C-alpha cells in the first residue's frame, strides 16, 4: 500500500520540531519545507483516517505540540497529500497567503464562547374570532408560517443584541471574532474570539462579568485553541458555516445538564 502524507500544521521554515513527535500509526512527524514555509507531515497508509475521538485528539496534540515550538497554523483534519513533492507543490501554490496568515495568527489563540438560554417569550398574534370564521385553512396555514417567521426574526434580533453586548465587553481583549447567532433555538450564540495568550485571564474575567450580569443565560467557555476559525484558506464560508446537524446535536448535549 502506497504511503501518503498527512499534513497537520504549517510553520515558518526553520522552526524547531519536538523530538520524536509521533503522528498517525506511530509515524514520526517531520517537516516538508519549501521557500519560507514548512508543513508538519507524517507518512500514512492510503487507508482512511476516521474522524473519531482518538484520531482527532492525536491531530490536535501534534498541532499544539508544534505550537509550543513556534508560530503555527492548524491544518484541517483529514488532509492527506500524495507525497512530499505534492506537499511542496501545495505550499508553493498557497505560499503568500499562508505566510501572511502565519504572521497574523501564528502566535495567537482562540477562545470559544457558547451562550445557552431559554428563548424569551415572544409576541403572539392570533386571529380575532371574526377573522378566523372567514378565513380558510390555507390562509390560516400561511398565517401560521408568517407568524413563525416573525417570531424567529424577533428571536434573532434579541440574540444579536446579546451578541453585541458580549462584543462590547470582550472586545477590549480580542483581535477578531467569528460568530453564529441563534444557530439553534436554545443556543443564543456560538462565537470564537482571536486573542493573544496574555489576554486569556482578562477575557475570562470579562466573561465572568457577563455571567453575573445575565444570570438567566449559561456561558460555556472553551479554549485556548489554535486559531482554526481565523485562517484565510478555510475552504468553506468560514466558522459560521457549521453543520446544522452538528449544531442540533451540540444543543442536545449542551442543554442536557452541563455544569
Amino acid at each position: 500500500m502506497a504511503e501518503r502524507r498527512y499534513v497537520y500544521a504549517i510553520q515558518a521554515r526553520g522552526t524547531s520540531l519536538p523530538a520524536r513527535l509521533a503522528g498517525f500509526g506511530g509515524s514520526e512527524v517531520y517537516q516538508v519545507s519549501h521557500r519560507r514555509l514548512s508543513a508538519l507531515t507524517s507518512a500514512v497508509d492510503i487507508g482512511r483516517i476516521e474522524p473519531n475521538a482518538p484520531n482527532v485528539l492525536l491531530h490536535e496534540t501534534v498541532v499544539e505540540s508544534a505550537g509550543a515550538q513556534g508560530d503555527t497554523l492548524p491544518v484541517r483534519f483529514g488532509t492527506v497529500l500524495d507525497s512530499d513533492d505534492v506537499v511542496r507543490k501545495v505550499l508553493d501554490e498557497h505560499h503568500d497567503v499562508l505566510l501572511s496568515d502565519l504572521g497574523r495568527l501564528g502566535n495567537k489563540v482562540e477562545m470559544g464562547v457558547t451562550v445557552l438560554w431559554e428563548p424569551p417569550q415572544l409576541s403572539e398574534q392570533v386571529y380575532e374570532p371574526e377573522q378566523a370564521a372567514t378565513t380558510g385553512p390555507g390562509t390560516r396555514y400561511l398565517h401560521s408560517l408568517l407568524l413563525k417567521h416573525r417570531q424567529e426574526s424577533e428571536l434573532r434580533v434579541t440574540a444579536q443584541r446579546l451578541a453585541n453586548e458580549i462584543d462590547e465587553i470582550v472586545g477590549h481583549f480580542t483581535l477578531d471574532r467569528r460568530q453564529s447567532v441563534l444557530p439553534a433555538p436554545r443556543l443564543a450564540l456560538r462565537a470564537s474570539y482571536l486573542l493573544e495568550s496574555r489576554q486569556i485571564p482578562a477575557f475570562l474575567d470579562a466573561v465572568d462579568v457577563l455571567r453575573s450580569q445575565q444570570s438567566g443565560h449559561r456561558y460555556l467557555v472553551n479554549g485556548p485553541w489554535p486559531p482554526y476559525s481565523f485562517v484565510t484558506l478555510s475552504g468553506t464560508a468560514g466558522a459560521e458555516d457549521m453543520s446544522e446537524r452538528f449544531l442540533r446535536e451540540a444543543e442536545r448535549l449542551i442543554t442536557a445538564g452541563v455544569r
Partner: protein
Amino acid sequence: MTASPRIDAEDVTLLELLDRVIDRGVYLSGDVTISVADVDLIYLGLKVMLTTAERADEMRGLTAARSRRELSDG
C-alpha cells in the same frame, strides 16, 4: 434547563474540538485526498454520538439535500 443525565464538561470540550478540526483550519485544495471514513458517527468516550454526515457528504462531493429536522426540546 430540562433535567437529564449529566454530561461532563469534557464532552463539550471534545465537541468544540471536533467542530474546529473537522470544519475549520487551513484547507489545502488541489491534490488533497481527504480520507474520511464512510461512518457518519463519531463516538465519544462516553458513548455520545455526533453525526458529521453533512461534512462527509461534502467531502464525497455529494450535494446535501436533506430535509430539516425540527429541533427537539431537551
